[in-house]
């Protein structure tokens, strides 16, 4: 029973989930591009960002712009701390040490959150102005949906311009391609890497807020699977490619939502499995991802 209205509606839901994956994938792909690190800790920022907003926005009653501003700042600061205390000393060592550290950092944060906020999920009630319903002929949506799409597009645009045009952005791409040579240019490589974490983490924390506002519930372990799926988006789009990460995010979001919408109901509980099935299919067809280029092996 196919109807275009239903398809459109579900596509929009898919795009919204895609926005969230795409934002997360941005931060993961730049970190992967430079350090060859699958940054599991990225997921922890989603959780702490969501709870941070829960407390300052809903409990303390700060305004929306102030909360957005603060959660970005808080996420950025966490990124800086993460890089400084956990990763910096490990650079130049085996990559697997970084990987385990990031997993450890995630686990630490998850357990810390479990202890502090309790294992119960929290209801994340959006204020009235974020839940205004709009009905058009085909689509029904709330103001939060508009907020997510608009803010995501703004962030992606700014990020894209930053990486393409700014001096720091060019330096970032240079470090990703060849760290040694970048150092010869006088680039302070550690500073560039820190900035990468700061930006990615700020965005991830903000994404935690979007997630909570959209799906109405946050919990201490919400970041794990979301983070892993964001990395799937990175791989699907083509590792290290920034446009690829965004594309991968949208592909994944759409595929996840549309498959639940159109497959028989009993498949709905396999939505996470479906995401990974997509990953496998894409990698079989295009091993480097949709927009990826084959990578020279580093020696």
């Amino acid at each position: 029973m196919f109807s275009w209205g239903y398809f459109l509606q579900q596509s929009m839901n898919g795009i919204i989930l895609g926005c969230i994956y795409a934002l997360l994938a941005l931060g993961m792909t730049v970190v992967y591009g430079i350090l060859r690190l699958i940054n599991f800790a990225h997921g922890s920022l989603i959780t702490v960002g969501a709870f941070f907003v829960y407390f300052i926005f809903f409990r303390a009653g700060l305004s929306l712009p102030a909360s957005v501003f603060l959660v970005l700042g808080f996420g950025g600061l966490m990124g800086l701390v993460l890089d400084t205390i956990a990763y910096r000393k490990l650079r130049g060592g085996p990559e697997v040490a970084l990987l385990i550290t990031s997993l450890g950092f995630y686990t630490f944060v998850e357990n810390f959150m479990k202890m502090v906020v309790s294992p119960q999920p929290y209801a994340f009630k959006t204020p009235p102005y974020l839940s205004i319903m709009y009905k058009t002929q085909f689509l029904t949506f709330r103001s939060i949906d508009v907020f997510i799409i608009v803010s995501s597009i703004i962030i992606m645009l700014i990020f894209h311009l930053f990486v393409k045009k700014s001096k720091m952005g060019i330096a970032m791409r240079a470090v990703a391609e060849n760290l040694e040579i970048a150092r010869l240019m006088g680039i302070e490589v550690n500073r560039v890497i820190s900035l990468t974490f700061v930006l990615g983490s700020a965005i991830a924390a903000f994404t935690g807020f979007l997630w909570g506002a959209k799906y109405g519930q946050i919990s201490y372990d919400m970041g794990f699977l979301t983070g892993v799926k964001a990395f799937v988006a990175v791989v699907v789009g083509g590792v290290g490619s920034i446009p690829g990460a965004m594309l991968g995010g949208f592909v994944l979001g759409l595929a996840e939502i549309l498959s639940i919408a159109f497959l028989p109901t009993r498949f709905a509980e396999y939505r996470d499995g479906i995401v990974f099935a997509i990953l496998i299919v894409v990698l079989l067809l295009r091993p480097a991802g949709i927009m990826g280029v084959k990578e020279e092996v580093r020696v």
Partner: protein
Amino acid sequence: MLKVEGLTVKYGVIPAVVNVSLEVREGQIVTLLGANGAGKTTTLKAVMGVLRPAVGKIFYRGQDITSLSPSLRVRLGIALVPEGRGIFNRLTVEENLLLGAYSRSSREEIVKDLEEIYLLFPRLAERRKQIAGTLSGGEQQMLALGRGLMARPQLMLLDEPSLGLAPLVVRELYTLIEKIRDQGVTILLVEQSALVALGIADYAYVLESGNVKLFGESEVLKSLDEVKRVYLGG
């Protein structure tokens, strides 16, 4: 201008350079010759600060720079054009050049220098928006030189610039190096092909297994039987 005193650099426990001393005078081209593995690149990397010496000191304009980071050395006016050119293949020609000027802050001056580089290397101007990985070997070497110049160096370290280039391109390249010297940039040139290097250098050092074996004015070295036999193939 540059003085290296008793430099020893090790990779782990294996010494690559042992007790090397050399001096580069302002306005000169000094060349560092030697076979593969003689320690030429290691010496340059130590001068740039990418490798830390186990023993020895490096002085630049009388200042001890041994413990300074590469980025500080760039700021002081030292630039290294690495072996194999070290172009950022995925960035455009212009982005590569701009990265050369990373440590400088005046936008206007950078833009002005960019135009000057394009005058010096017209082929780079034609390809400014092109991805650097698509350039030919000769063009990539020009780009590497141009990028080095964008730092406005007073001392340029060139690591085997002629490697892998056709003889005609090498000649063009060496004309450019002389031009750069004439603009007041001091050059420390590492080469395996001694003949071309001795042709433009004022002074030369010959390294062998990490030690300075011979040194002297290029003219004098060229006429030594030993140099002729081993390095000049005659």
